[in-house]
């Protein structure tokens, strides 16, 4: 197979090729990685993408801008609302639509719930990669509460299409507020349990410390963003760096690590749960009354000619939509910059010379969502 030109069995150097995926249990979807091994050490890695490619960018060029909203949720099934948010913001920015304040609050609350949901799933699945079977069930137990809350307001459980250009599709009610507050309390009370069972565990510490170390410079070269970057000590979060929506009004910290290894990004993600809870609490406290939709959104939304960019902080890093418009209601070109794509591209460098077990833990720390990479 010509794809394997770079990675070939080399009996002289005692090297051989291991094909990981696309059905390997720890590649989380249809990612394939070719590993050139020497003993159990991975000397070369070659990720092979494209098994889940669904031509989202091509689809976008063929239908009105507003109709692309459901597709955004399918790119990253774990951060669907945040992907909605980025796209809605792109069109609002491009068409100059003002969004009511209540909508911004609702968007922030639901987006943060979505982020917690995504982090909880990663938490469980990562521990599953590391061989602990139980935490995923505990994380799903908590996650299920979020799904119930979001189902009640958005109508779906995973691929939400909730945000609209200029608003949201359904208003939140008192039931949402009380159940969200109850959830915030519940998740807080579960943190000590996670701390005991997982975070402090000596086996986990040994598995993650000093594995897959990154530096800020490496992150810049590869365009790595999100918790991995924050694990290296750079407090770069789109919610702070380019405050979109109403994030500038909230008081929250950006957790950072120091070493940039798997443990650092692990703890960054874990602490982000708490920060997201804080944002949700503040947003619930300040939730204003008002309409949930801008009245003046035209049915056929024409975007003035030019190029527009919208960046938001997805659970895995920076998500950017880049729209080139020729003045019609159909995008001339829509490019989606997904965080996992850039994050995964570091794997050949990061995992060089690692043990096979460490490759698994390093790739798990990237929190890969393959449909997001393949689009």
């Amino acid at each position, binding site marked *: 197979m*010509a*794809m394997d*030109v*770079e990675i070939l069995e080399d009996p002289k150097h005692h090297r051989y090729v291991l094909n990981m995926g696309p059905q390997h249990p720890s590649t989380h979807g249809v990612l394939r990685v070719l590993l050139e091994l020497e003993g159990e050490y991975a000397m070369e890695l070659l990720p092979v*993408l*494209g098994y889940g*490619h669904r*031509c989202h*960018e*091509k689809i976008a*060029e063929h239908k009105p801008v507003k109709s692309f909203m459901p597709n955004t949720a399918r790119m990253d099934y774990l951060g669907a609302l945040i992907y909605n948010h980025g796209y809605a913001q*792109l069109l609002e*920015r*491009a*068409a*100059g*639509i003002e969004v009511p304040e209540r909508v911004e609050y609702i968007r922030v609350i639901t987006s943060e719930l979505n982020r917690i949901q995504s982090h909880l799933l990663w938490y469980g699945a990562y521990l599953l990669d590391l061989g602990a079977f139980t935490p995923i069930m505990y994380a799903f137990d908590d996650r299920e509460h979020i799904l119930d809350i979001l189902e009640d307001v958005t109508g779906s459980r995973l691929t939400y299409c909730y945000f609209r250009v200029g608003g949201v599709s359904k208003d939140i009610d008192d039931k949402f507020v009380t159940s969200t507050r109850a959830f915030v309390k519940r998740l807080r009370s579960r943190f000590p349990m996670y701390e005991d069972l997982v975070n402090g565990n000596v086996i986990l510490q040994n598995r993650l410390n000093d594995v897959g170390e990154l530096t*800020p410079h490496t*992150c*810049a*070269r*590869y*365009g*790595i*963003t999100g918790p991995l*970057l924050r694990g290296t000590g*750079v407090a*770069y979060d789109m919610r702070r*760096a*380019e405050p979109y929506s109403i994030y500038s009004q909230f008081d929250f910290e950006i957790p950072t690590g120091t070493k940039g290894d798997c443990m650092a990004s692990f703890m960054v993600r874990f602490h982000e749960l708490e920060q997201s809870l804080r944002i949700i609490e503040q947003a619930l406290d300040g939730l204003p009354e008002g309409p949930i939709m801008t009245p*003046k959104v*035209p049915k*056929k939304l*024409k975007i*003035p*000619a*030019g*190029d*527009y*960019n*919208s*960046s938001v902080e997805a659970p895995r890093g*920076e998500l*950017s939509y*880049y729209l*080139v*418009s*020729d*003045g019609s209601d159909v995008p*001339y*070109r829509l*490019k989606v*910059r997904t965080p996992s*794509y*850039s994050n995964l*591209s*570091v794997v050949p*460098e990061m995992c060089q010379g690692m043990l096979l077990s460490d490759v698994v833990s390093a790739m798990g720390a990237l929190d890969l969502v393959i449909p997001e990479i*393949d*689009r």
Partner: protein
Amino acid sequence: MDINKLKKQWQDLSTAVEGIDYSVSGHDYNVSLERDKVRDFAALMLEEGFYLVDLMAVHVTPAIEVVYQFAHFEARCRVLARAFVDDNSEMPTISDIYQGANWHERETRDFHGVVFVDHPYLYPLILAEEDVDLKPLLKDEANLKDVDAVRRKPPEPAPEPKPEVKPEVKPEAKPEAAKSQEQS
């Protein structure tokens, strides 16, 4: 990061540097480059601590335009750099400067057929091997637009004749943009 110094350096490398209102377009600067200056520009950006957000191509006439997006970890400074490919759809690679560009360039090769010269492994990434000449994102004749059709229009003083386009969607007058256009 000294933005004024940077701007001067950009101007040395580029044909035009244009400041843009972030609240309208979501980025701060627009830098038009010549093909042979792309690598110098990328090296400068890496030195200044920018990271590569994205690399993409837009199919317009007269040639495919390759757009590089950079941002900075410390301060908000989102830069779009753009350059046209040559007649053979070729473009110098920046994947040895920004290793993250490696996959973006392979993807652009898949979708638009832009050949990045000196790329270490320009092999189909997203598409299958046999679809190497598919170039799915190239526009056909009917849809292909001129590059000026997709550029931001300077605000017109006269009211828009078409009623369905809302007046508020038009970008507002930007002193910076006007200035830089004078320069170019």
